[in-house]
């Protein structure tokens, strides 16, 4: 029965028309997530201003950065984050090469120290600049990094969403399981639940302010709110509109990313 409903939902969105062969397998979680991934890709080389607000027990602090993203066809995304605030880390820049196996590579430019350093990134679970986001939460979504277990329709707050359960297969993760709730209209997650190895629901990510680019083919959230239930803290990331005026593809490399500001 749930299959029927999801089929009907799919039909209603009309997007299934492009991928008819896969339509029959729409309740397959991996297919759903593949579709989800496809529907957010396409801004090959983009740039956005990012404001991150970390709030813990009523007090908050803000970090600002400019983010450049280069999508690649056969490997993970390449991202450059350049900090503009707080003032003492202005100009600090981080280059990340996401890898399909989850073993990302990172380089850090510290202008005051005057050096570019490669960072050991075996710790995928670490918090990104003191926020409630781990690096792995921000790393590009690649099907190869997960094992998908189930998909079903779920009613959340009166809306019917597609619930997908999956688990990371890469080393160094902090999670035992993940659960995404996708909006059937654009297949993008509106809520992610993160479970630790004790099986506890430790974090929740709410994704909202979805906007479409490329004539409705590419969907991107512009507000992410991550809540850490154990610590009781939240981190909000808001993106400006993504622009195609990124930086040259060649700048996404370890010896050139310091030119980007």
């Amino acid at each position, binding site marked *: 029965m749930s299959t029927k409903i999801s089929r009907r939902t799919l039909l209603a969105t009309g997007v299934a028309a492009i991928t008819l062969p896969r339509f029959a397998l729409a309740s397959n979680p991996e297919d759903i997530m593949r579709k989800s991934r496809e529907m957010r890709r396409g801004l090959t080389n983009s740039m956005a201003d990012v404001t991150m607000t970390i709030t813990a027990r009523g007090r908050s602090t803000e970090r600002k950065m400019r983010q450049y993203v280069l999508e690649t066809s056969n490997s993970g995304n390449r991202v450059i984050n350049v900090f503009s605030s707080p003032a003492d*880390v202005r100009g600090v820049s*981080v280059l990340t090469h996401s890898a399909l196996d989850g073993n990302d590579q990172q380089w850090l430019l510290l202008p005051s120290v005057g050096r570019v350093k490669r960072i050991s990134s075996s710790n995928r679970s670490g918090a990104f600049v003191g926020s409630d986001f781990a690096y792995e939460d921000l790393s590009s979504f690649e099907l190869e990094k997960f094992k998908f277990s189930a998909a079903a329709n779920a009613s959340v707050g009166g809306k019917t969403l597609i619930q997908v359960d999956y688990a990371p297969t890469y080393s160094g993760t902090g999670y035992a399981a993940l659960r995404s709730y996708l909006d059937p209209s654009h297949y993008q997650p509106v809520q992610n639940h993160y479970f630790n190895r004790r099986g506890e629901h430790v974090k929740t990510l709410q994704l909202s302010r979805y906007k479409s680019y490329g004539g409705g083919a590419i969907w991107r959230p512009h507000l992410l709110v991550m809540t850490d239930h154990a610590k009781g803290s939240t981190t909000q990331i808001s993106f400006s509109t993504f622009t195609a005026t990124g930086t040259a593809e060649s700048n996404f490399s370890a010896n050139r990313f310091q030119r980007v500001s």
Partner: protein
Amino acid sequence: MSASPLDPKQHAHPRFARSLTRVLATYPRLALLCGVLVMAFAFSGLARLQADFSYAGYFHESDTWLQDFDRFEDTFGNDDSIIIAVQNTEGLFNPASIALLHALTDEMWQLPEVIRVDSLTNYQRAFAEGDDILVEPLIAPSAELSADFLTDREEIALSHETLPGYLVSPDGTMALLFGTLRPSGETAPDAAKVVAAARDLVARAEERGTGHTFHLVGAPMLVASFAEIAEADNAKIIPLLLLACVLIIFAVLRSVWCVVYAMVVIVTSALGVLGLAGWLGVQMTSITTVLPQIMIGVAVADCLHILVTYRLAQKDQPDRKQAALYALTKNVKPTLITTVTTAIGFISFSVSDIKTIAELGLAASAGVVLAWLLSYLLLGPLLLLLPFGGARAGEPMRLAPERTKTLVRWLAAYRKPILAGFAALILVGSFAGSQVKIDADPVAYFTEGHPLRNGVEAIDAGVGSARNIEIMIEAGCADCAKDPDFLRRVDTLEQWIEARSDVVQVLSIVDFLKASRRALNDGDENEYRLADTQSVIAQELLFYTMGLPLGLSVDNRISTQSDALRLTVMWRVSSSSQALQEIALIEEEAARLGLDATVTGKYALYQRQESYVVGSFLSSVGIALLLISGLLWMAFRSFKLAAIALLPNMTPLLIGGLGLWLLQENLNVGTVLVVSITLGIAIDDTVHILSEFQRLKRLGLSARQAFEGVFAETGVALCATTLVLMVAFGVSVFASFAPYQVFGILAAAVLFVALVVDLTFLPALLLPKDEGREDAKPKSAAWAETTVAPSATPKPSS
């Protein structure tokens, strides 16, 4: 009830006493119903009873130290850790031990409520390797544990700036694993749950880790152990106490039914007080768990006075009902006065800065009133309604008239030595009391051999310390904690603290900043220092934090806003007096450096609570004495008697001080209760003696005859109740909560001495000089008529 010619004493009872018993006699069933309702009300509070064995149970919400701590917890999270110590006397840097540490680290993450695990193996070290700079665990789980590698790691660990004295012992034979609990938030972490899982973990580790010794310590262990020993102590002590009550009461009354009546009141009072605690919102702590014990003692006293009078009166009054009415009437005034004085003694605790002591006083004073109500509304109707407990029972314990005469003559003859003896007691007691130190060690609250105490002692001897205090240093503005001048002053403070003799290690962000700088400068040892500008410091910090895995971030060392730092001081200081001194010195040094430092942490809270002890003690004893004297003045309507009544009640203070001094024990949250609790109870003896003395005098008896009368009835009841109370508190020597062992011995000693003083000092003071030598003639035939008949039963008690 009409005045019976067989009960000529009745006219000497106060009118309210006669009215009360008249109502009891007329409507015994209604009275019983009221008694049952009171009981039901008290019991219904049991469902509301809550326990809090954590630090919070000791502090009022408005306490500034508690508020300081809450601010600290808001900024840096919980400072509670469950700590596992692993020891291998052969050294830990071998594949088996390291594998064990890896497994333990991993399993500790799985413990409930744990959000962070710090261990020797997962310590995040910043270092340079060739062109790369790395932030990596000291020994990663994936590392190949070759002999060379392990020797290298041992060298790094033991010469590290932070690790020895924190996560590893200086000789590399013991390692500590810290599992930090989540912050309190809406509900505090469940210590019992953490401890149960941790014990399970250690039990499993003991199975596979042959050659290793394990210890489990830390704040959750302290909290859980307090709860466990409180429960175990009550399970051990209460049945013992009830059994002793049955035996003593039977020995005195020689009537099975009277024992049953008494036990009904005693057991319902002991349970009822917990119900009242529930209604009053009083939480169970290591301190308040003593409530049932107190209540058993108080209820026994009320019942025994009534029942001893009843049994003795049966000799001359064959009608059960009349004997019961006489006993009930005679005791209304003294039991009411003692109830109020005892209640005042307890309610005076409520000014205490130590929350649990204030709450103990509140619940105990309500319980004292409950015990009196139940004595009159349960025991009274039972005596009047049930046809049991008659004269056919055995001969009750009594004092032969010639013995009372001898005793009184003897007391009159030795007036001066008795008074001199009391004066000597005052001198010795005051001197000893002034020598008593105020000190405590929460760990030493557990008796020797308790696993927690063993663990702490083993860690003190190995790694150095499992006790930590926390210092929050506020920079004043966002990002100012990265200011080099501020950090240099923090560094100076840290080094100053580390130089203190009992300090093993101080942890702070400064250590990480220096290590990061060294790593960024290709491992140059000269660069193990703070940078000169804020932007360099901020970027070094960012570099370090970018390499940290989940749960090991530095948000427990520097606030999210970068406006405050945290210093954790691992020290060996065990006594609260030394801790308070050291804390004061640290605060002084911080102020000298111009740092806004707040010393806090759970351990500091436990220690600081002891500084409230003296204030609590003085104010509660002072208020109690003041209120009690006022009450006695009103009750006796005689300033002289009220003043005299106060004198013997310095005994609890004197014996308490003397006892602590002789036992070489300190005044702390447990032992301070001795004086406060016994004060309210010891004064009962005085009240009973003086009230009966005054009544008999008003009948026209001489002072000497009056005392003979007092000894004959009241004296027996007093000896019996004191015996029960001595047992009631004395059984605490079997407690596992060490302060209660001392409390038990001292309370029993105080009550014994208090009775001896009351029975000797009061007559010595009130008997006229000449009366000792000549026999005054009885002025009242009525007295002679009811004087107890000669009996073969000797007086074995006291």
